């Protein structure tokens, strides 16, 4: 499977990738995007099977990215990996079509718990 990691922090993209490997998902293919607008382009160009996105990003936030995808009928599985994990945000994410929201700081267990059913 191909997984798109969208985060404006390069360091955080590296940490998400490392944590995915620690969670046992390192055999998948990974592509990266540095903001929401680039992520939207990468979804079109790369057709990933899963998007892991930060919420707070320049150009297009994670929730704007998700709404833009769903607005064009793109149903790619989508999860947030973000520094904010309030109930309001979780409800907003779910209502927009996100599968899950993992709040930073996170561990490999969080990714395993959310993704083992989908990624195996």
């Amino acid at each position, binding site marked *: 499977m191909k997984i798109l990691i969208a985060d404006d922090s390069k360091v955080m993209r*590296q940490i998400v990738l490392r944590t995915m490997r620690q969670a046992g998902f390192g055999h998948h293919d990974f592509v990266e995007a540095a903001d929401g607008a680039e992520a939207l382009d990468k979804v079109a160009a790369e057709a990933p099977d899963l998007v892991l996105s930060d919420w707070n990003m320049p150009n297009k936030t994670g929730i704007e990215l998700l709404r833009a995808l769903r607005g064009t009928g793109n149903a790619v599985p989508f999860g947030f990996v*973000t*520094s904010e994990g309030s109930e309001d945000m979780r409800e907003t994410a779910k209502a927009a079509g996100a599968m899950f929201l993992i709040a*930073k700081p996170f561990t490999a267990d969080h990714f395993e718990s959310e993704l083992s059913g989908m990624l195996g």
Partner: protein
Amino acid sequence: MTISSAPDEALVLAAIEQVWGSMLFATAEAWPSDRVADFETGVQAQIELRGDWNGRLVLTCDSEVATQIAGAMLGLGPEEELPELDIHDAVGEVLNVVGGSVKGALVGTCALGLPGVSETSGAPSRDDSFVVSWGDAPVYVQILPDAA
């Protein structure tokens, strides 16, 4: 975490302790008030909170501490080097996660900004800061409400 209407030292320190422990595999402790906490060249990260409370959280540390924080975040060995851009990115992301945790504990706060990071010369005044430890080095934290 306790729900508050404005961030205070206890709330921000609790967020820092959580981030130090889970992201950086280190312990944050309050720096003794009578201990010197100076440095000459540092890195300063700040992030805005907007809502019922408006202001900034600011984190300032020595450049070497910033390098160590970035290395700890990425699990690098002591000999591995990072470009300055990545060091700034890492320190900003640490503050971003602290800010997210603080935001979650505030009533009415609705928006967290993007972190900004720059070089700074010297430590902030201890009058409007509290200091936590990174190993044997100080990290300054400021909770700065917008000027009325």
